[in-house]
């Protein structure tokens, strides 16, 4: 019951890990992604990604600028122009 989360910027692959939940700032509003989310694609607005390592953990906050998020059967991939 883990979601595979990848955060990629043009300069490097920033994160590639299994987490519980990620909240992404979509252009039309924030959305949370858990394991088994339906295939989904959205552009993101400048804001913060919140990563929850497990159900009870504190959110880890990663600021991101520009890009988009894709959810497929392999997990969540966020392509951001700038992050961290």
């Amino acid at each position, binding site marked *: 019951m883990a979601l595979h989360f990848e955060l*990629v*910027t*043009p*300069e*490097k*692959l920033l994160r590639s890990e299994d987490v519980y939940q990620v909240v992404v700032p*979509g*252009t*039309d509003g924030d959305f949370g992604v858990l394991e088994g989310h*339906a*295939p*989904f*694609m*959205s*552009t993101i607005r400048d804001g913060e990604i919140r990563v929850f390592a497990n159900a009870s953990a504190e959110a880890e906050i990663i600021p991101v600028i*520009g*890009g*988009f998020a*894709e959810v*497929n*059967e392999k997990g969540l*991939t966020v*392509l951001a*122009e*700038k992050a961290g």
Partner: protein
Amino acid sequence: MASLKELKLRIASVKSTQKITKAKQMVAAAKLRKAQAAAEAARPYSERLEAVVASLAGKISVSAASPKLIAGTGADDTHLLIVANSDRGLCGAFNANIVKAAMLAAREMIGEGKKVKFYLIGRKGRAVISRAFPNQIIGSYDTTTMKEPSFDHAQAVAADILARYEAGEFDVAHLFFSTFKSALAQVPTQQQIIPVAIPADAPATADATVEYEPDEESILTDLLPRNVSIQIFKALLENSASEQGASMTAMDNATRNAGDLINRLTIEYNRSRQAAITTELVEIISGAEAL
């Protein structure tokens, strides 16, 4: 035959040249490793972006109303050649090869009755291109302050080019850079970046019902300019790795040539030294015999 003193000076001069080429070779080797790592680190992003753009582009039907970056301007008259070079020499035929490829393509396009404009990244190559195609360089980007390619630079170039595209300055843009194969081989490459070339065999991902937010077309409009930036960024990275590779090979050759030259000069030096001693001895002996 040159005098002993001249030979000595010559050897000293070649030796100091050899020191420089050797140092440059080692610097290039160290930088190459870094540039290669940077090029590899950028690969996941561009690969994924390409996959997404291809799958999105396969989904929407291209019409006159589609984003201009996919549909084109409807004309094929003016071509912009974006030529990415380095700022420094001492890297063999690296810059010359890119410029040669670009000029060849330009002549071909002119032969087909098209108009050609140039946009230059980097300092080298400017002189050659401006001599062959005067008044056809519409812009350039200065990379002399750039230590290693960063995405910010690529974005600045892309923004400039996209603004010119919007202003209707050209219809098609090609990017010229050098693909890094290995330290020994760098291949000058031409790539069309505007309008986006859609691979004919785009992976059919239509079977998965993907939800889009906002709709496909808005995402695509958002992604295409990013795609241009990332292509330019990729070219800059490939270029910087290629430059270091070419530099390393060229300097390795130069160091070896200098070594050969030093050997030859040393032999010549010793010969003339011995000849001088022999002459002196002959003079003394024949003087003594005459007594």
